[in-house]
């Protein structure tokens, strides 16, 4: 069973609150914008220099001067403001963004996050990921529970310690996978806690696929 990508995005959307300013990463996090409850004001930040991101343009209305941090053409809203990349990351690093939702390769039980490079593979760079996890007040990771390797085996992604190069240390507050939801006490010593199971998923299945240690406090 487990959650689909859409269900994971819908679960992540429950972390939104009225008046929030939010930065969404590429992939499943992008889908979260489809689940913003009607009537809730959530402004999306794009770290290249925009607050108040609108939907993709209608065909033929793309503007080369208006792109998001994924370099995709987008549109503006009445609430939109533009600013420089320095001001944008001042906003991020200064703790003004309420929530960042992003993908990950690995998350450790202490909140360490790895999502930018795999040794031996072509490194493209970290872009704004390190600034976002260091600066945004609350960081939610949405990812598959395990990595599927080329040889057909699976590797745990929720670990005691990340073995990939880190994006940030003690940065992740919440992890949403296709199997369940974990909180992490990133600045304290409360560790990782399983708080929700995806539909039809058992605690045993999660235990088998999780290397990191965690408590269970299902809601």
């Amino acid at each position, binding site marked *: 069973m487990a959650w689909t990508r859409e269900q994971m995005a819908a679960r992540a959307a429950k972390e939104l609150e009225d008046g929030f300013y939010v930065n969404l990463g590429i992939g499943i996090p992008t889908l979260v914008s489809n689940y913003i409850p009607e009537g809730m004001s959530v402004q999306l930040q794009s770290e290249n220099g*925009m607050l108040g991101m609108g939907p993709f343009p209608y065909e033929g209305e793309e503007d080369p*001067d208006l*792109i*998001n941090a994924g370099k995709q053409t987008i549109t503006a809203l009445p609430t939109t403001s533009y600013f420089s990349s320095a001001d944008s990351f001042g906003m991020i690093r200064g703790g003004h963004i309420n929530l960042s939702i992003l993908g990950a390769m690995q998350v450790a039980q202490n909140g360490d996050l790895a999502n930018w490079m795999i040794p031996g593979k*072509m490194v493209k760079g970290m872009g704004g990921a390190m600034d976002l996890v260091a600066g945004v007040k609350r960081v939610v990771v949405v990812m598959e529970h395990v990595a599927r390797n080329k040889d057909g085996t699976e590797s745990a992604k929720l670990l005691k310690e990340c073995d990939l190069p880190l994006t940030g240390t003690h940065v992740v507050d919440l992890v949403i996978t296709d199997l369940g939801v974990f909180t992490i006490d990133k600045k304290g010593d409360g560790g990782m806690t399983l708080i929700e199971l995806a539909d039809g998923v058992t605690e045993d299945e999660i235990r088998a696929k999780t290397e990191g240690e965690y408590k269970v406090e299902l809601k």
Partner: protein
Amino acid sequence: MRKVYKGPTEALAGLLRDNMMIMCGGFGLCGIPDELIDAVQASGVKGLTIVSNNAGIDGVGLGKLLETRQVAKMISSYVGENKEFARQYLGGELEIEFNPQGTLAERIRAGGAGIPAFFTKTGFGTKVAEGKETRQFDGEDYVMERGLFADLAIVHAHTGDTEGNLRYRMTARNFNPMMATAAKVTVAQVEHLVQPGEIDPDTIHTPGIFVKRIIAVNTGEKRIEQRTTRKRNDATPAAAAGGGTH
């Protein structure tokens, strides 16, 4: 009018030399000073250190300077959208210094503002902090980063006046304003060159003091790196387009 030059070649005359450091505005292909990049390529200068968030794509923007192997080193946050870049990088022909995007932006802003170094949380405990001074302030860990100042900055703006005052458009602003402040000489290409007084002085993003030379360019059809659209009958909610974080 003493700042206005006829074209990109004239505007860069006397400013280019081998092994210099050049800052180049833009994010992806958005807001890049394409005609000035072309003129750098045509000049044949080599061994360049280029400060730019990205490295263009094959045959477009900084991708052109890579094709002619004029670049020795990139200081960037996200690269490799083009094959030639990957080839040179993996072959050890091209050096790259990765900076977190916000650290890169702030290093440039600091360089232009007389700040030789500052502390940031970004990258603490990661490869980015290796070899750098770290330090606690109020119980939090920070990394010390240095300001960046280049020999030359090339930037793109939507409107400029003959005094060098610039205004950018939408997300084409990105790295251009900081870079304009952080080089010995800044050369700007603008889509609309106007007379002083034609830009509302409350809305000038880059005061003329930072711009030594300026040219008008005809950008024609600007390139789009990732054309994403929705259908006319799509009822996507207002805030439905995702951001991207590499």
